[in-house]
């Protein structure tokens, strides 16, 4: 009786999980496997791949190229490092913008809260390309920003922001800021303000209260938002293409070039693996921090 019941519930579980599992297998696991395999194959002369094992794709990036067909070029590592640096800068700027704002919004009356959350999601209603071209119009030498600054006599000649790292970071922050705001806002909104009162009452200064109470309790949102912003900014190629041009090459653009321009699929795949590896390292630390917190809660429930 109980066995058949268990069988039935297993069947139901399989039925419920089936579509999702199938979808992920076809559209996530399979393409990813193709990329992993390709990254160890030789590039075909006119695109495509030769089915021979070939580890020099990674050698080209990391330094063990054979020196005849493939050359080690530190430029790839340099581009890679620049991408990580710019992604981290984007994360930090988003964090600095969103953390105080989340506290400010969480203290507004309810109808204003709803309005501000609507404003945060508003950019999603317009095309990404359109919004980024608007930034081109703002940042270019004869653009809006320079016109205003010159009009105010703050600068004597236009600042050329276009095709700089700064322009790319502005663009990345601009498109990714909602992904930082929403998780932080969720954790700030949950924060019980009487804990802040209690901390002050117990003799903690404002800084101590922040470090010992507010920060630890909002950390899950901060970490979550940072991960969600870091991953797309590391692999992004649209923003660097439009605002960084050829001067600020990021790893995402490089991968795009390898697949579409140079038609060196295995090398593009190898670069992608590098990006994924980096993201996995960051995710590892995140999941470890998260599971530690969950283990704590689990212990609390069982106790």
């Amino acid at each position, binding site marked *: 009786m109980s066995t058949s019941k268990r069988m039935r519930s297993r069947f139901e579980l399989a039925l419920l999980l089936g579509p999702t599992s199938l979808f992920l297998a076809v559209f996530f696991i399979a393409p990813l496997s193709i990329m992993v395999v390709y990254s160890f194959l030789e590039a075909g002369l006119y695109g495509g791949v030769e089915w021979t094992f070939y580890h020099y794709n990674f050698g080209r990036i990391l330094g063990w190229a054979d020196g005849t067909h493939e050359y080690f070029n530190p430029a790839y590592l340099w581009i890679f490092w620049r991408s990580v640096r710019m992604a981290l800068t984007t994360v930090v700027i988003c964090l600095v913008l969103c953390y105080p704002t989340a506290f400010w919004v969480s203290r507004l009356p309810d109808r204003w809260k709803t309005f501000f959350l609507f404003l945060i999601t508003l950019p999603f209603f317009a095309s990404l390309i359109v919004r980024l071209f608007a930034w081109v119009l703002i940042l270019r030498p004869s653009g809006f920003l320079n016109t205003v600054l010159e009009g105010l006599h703050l600068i004597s000649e236009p600042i050329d922001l276009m095709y700089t790292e700064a322009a790319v970071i502005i663009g990345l922050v601009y498109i990714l800021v909602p992904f930082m705001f929403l998780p932080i806002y969720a954790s700030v909104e949950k924060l019980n303000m009487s*804990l802040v009162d209690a901390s002050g*009452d117990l003799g*903690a200064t404002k800084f101590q209260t922040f470090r*010992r109470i507010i920060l630890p309790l909002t950390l899950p949102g901060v970490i979550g938002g940072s991960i969600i912003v870091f991953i797309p900014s590391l692999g992004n190629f649209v923003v660097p293409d439009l605002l960084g041009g050829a001067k600020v090459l990021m790893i995402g653009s490089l991968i795009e070039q390898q697949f579409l321009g140079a038609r060196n699929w295995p090398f593009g795949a190898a670069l992608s693996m590098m990006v994924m590896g980096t993201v996995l390292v960051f995710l590892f630390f995140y999941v470890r921090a998260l599971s530690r917190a969950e283990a*704590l809660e689990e*212990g609390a429930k069982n106790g």
Partner: protein
Amino acid sequence: MIPRRPMAAAIEPGADSEDAFAPDPVRGRISVHMAGACKPAIDIQMTDSDSIDHFLEIRDASKTFVTPEGELFRALENISLPVRNNEFVTLLGPSGCGKTTLLRTISGLEELDRGEIMIDGRSMIGIPPHRRPVNTVFQNYALFPHLSVGDNVGYSLDVAHVARTERDRRVGEALDLVGLAGMERRRPRQLSGGQQQRVALARAIISNPKLLLLDEPLSALDRGLRQAMQIELKNIQSELGISFVFVTHDQEEALTMSDRIVVMSGGQIEQVGTPTEVYDRPSTAFVAEFIGESNIFRGVLRTNADGESELALGDDQTVRLRADGAGENRESTLLIRPENLLVPEPGDEPDPAQYGALDVTLRQAVFLGTDFQLICTLGDGTTLKAIVRDTARQTVSSLRRGDRVRLHYWLDSPYLIPGTPAR
């Protein structure tokens, strides 16, 4: 009558060291509890000039909030209140009466618009909460969910950078005092409501405040636990020898625990007095109605043919009373507590020279366990409540709805509420 602990005990130097809450090894906790369970029957008369005894003094405090609708809400209006060392003062009133606001201005979480708060002879104007020598037990405990019980209790020592060994010892002692010895490593969520309440208490007293503020700390507990905690809180207070300012809307709680009760309404103090004072001699009709059950009559006081004072009711009956200098032809408010009305045994009519009588119609008799509550109406439909004991189950038990009943009262029991015209 148990004499109150001498004042000197609260201000002697040893009392504010960490020894203050160390359990007495000789007497042990039980004897302390029993001593503390007896409330001082009569409060010491206050002498306002002797301000050195007033650890806390609130002077002319006013605070106005702006509501979300843009209206002004006067939370506190000209509140003045001295609190002595080692005194258990309760702020009692309905929700929105300003009692919690007053508590928050003492702890510094709210600033006063006008007036001042003196703690230990020092003005608290501009002093932030973390630099005030008071601690608070919050309504929903406000325990830090990410910290263990030990870290919660030791929080005030940690932010003050107290050495680890001393900190651990004091955390142990504080948990011992509230009956949670050895629970340092638990998480707040692993504890029951009553235990969380104790952690909040231990956390608030560990740094030896001279004044503890409690914001409805028992309201989230169930009835049995609440009553046990009332007695325990009172014991801990006398054990620590510090002043408690306790906020509640529960009059029973206030009567049980307090040395003095401050009855508040609409941001103002209605009355300050011992539990017996506010119960027996309420200074306003609000106090009379808020504390305990009450029958309140309003009318013109006059002198009858026998030279007695009497108040005419709506149905041509009168309430007689012995009130000296009650004044003639004055609008007056009269209080008769339900328990002061009696239903005599048949054939046992009280002496009319000592007892008055009211003829009423019985509407409902509710058995409360020890007593019966009778809900009656006068001739003009006014409701009158009486609480009578009928141990033999003969007089009240035989009454039926609609019966005419004669209620008696001792002529001393009707109480003229001073200075309140009919509202």
